[in-house]
């Protein structure tokens, strides 16, 4: 199994995630699509680690997972706070940072 297949899968998952970020209106689903993109990056990193033959890429992927976890944490906290304030859970409606 040559490595470029893994890279193609990574590219595909990344683009699906990007499309989802642009298309979905529920912030939770947007965050999920963001996870998709991060995971796609992970695949690419692991693949390149295998290409080089050292574990640096895998360490990188672990750290990416840490960052993704933190970001999910905060993002979900925000969504909970928004829900508590009885604002609509819709990225199109949450646009006060405008003008």
């Amino acid at each position: 199994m040559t490595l470029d297949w893994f890279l193609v899968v990574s590219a595909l998952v990344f683009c699906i995630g990007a499309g989802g970020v642009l298309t979905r209106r529920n912030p939770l689903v947007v965050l999920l699509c963001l996870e998709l993109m991060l995971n796609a990056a992970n695949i690419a990193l692991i693949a390149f680690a295998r290409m080089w033959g050292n574990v640096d890429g895998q360490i990188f992927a672990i750290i990416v997972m840490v960052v993704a976890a933190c970001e999910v944490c905060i993002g979900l906290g925000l969504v909970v706070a928004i829900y508590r304030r009885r604002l609509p859970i819709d990225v199109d409606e949450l646009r006060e940072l405008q003008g």
Partner: protein
Amino acid sequence: MTEVLFFIAAIGAIVGAVGVVALQNPFYSVLALVFHLLSLAALFLLLQAQFVAAAQVVVYAGAVMVLYVFVVAYVGAAESTHFKAPIGGGQRAFAVGFALALFVELVIAVLGSGLSAISTEGPDVRFGFGSPEQIGQALLTRFLVAFEVASYLLLIAAVGAVVLARRRGGIHEEETRVSAMSFLRPPGVGTMAEGVEGRTGTPEHRELGPPAERVP
């Protein structure tokens, strides 16, 4: 054998990804993502990243997704479709178009790449490649700073999540708006806003009301 496994895992990953994007119910999207993550773990195994695969399953699919499930349950699963989006089908087409364009570019980059190494299966690696022992060694010697910073980041995220989501018990809209002026000048001493709105003076004098109109 590896090709078969690869294709199964790859297809699983792609189906999961598409499911995340396409399914209307957020619950189902979460479940699709879990499926996707498990497929990814299989892909990692194929790439000799055992520890990362295990971490993926335990941490990502196990902890983060559970958190997601909790929040989706709290917030509510319905996608409100009863009002029209400000920009509708046009942007959808654009989004799909851009994503497609990006995919095409990346594929061209990959297939036409000058990196000849990616056309191979990778060099032969010794047995402990990707094992916890090697990861641990790398983390604690060469990537120690990244490790420490990552743990620090997790601490910040934990504190941040607590602060964001704590209950503030019965606060109304106005009271959360804290104005710097109320710390600097007590009301009634005569700021410009007070003068214009007629709120100056001690309360005894306030029955005079706001200043009269200018006599023409």
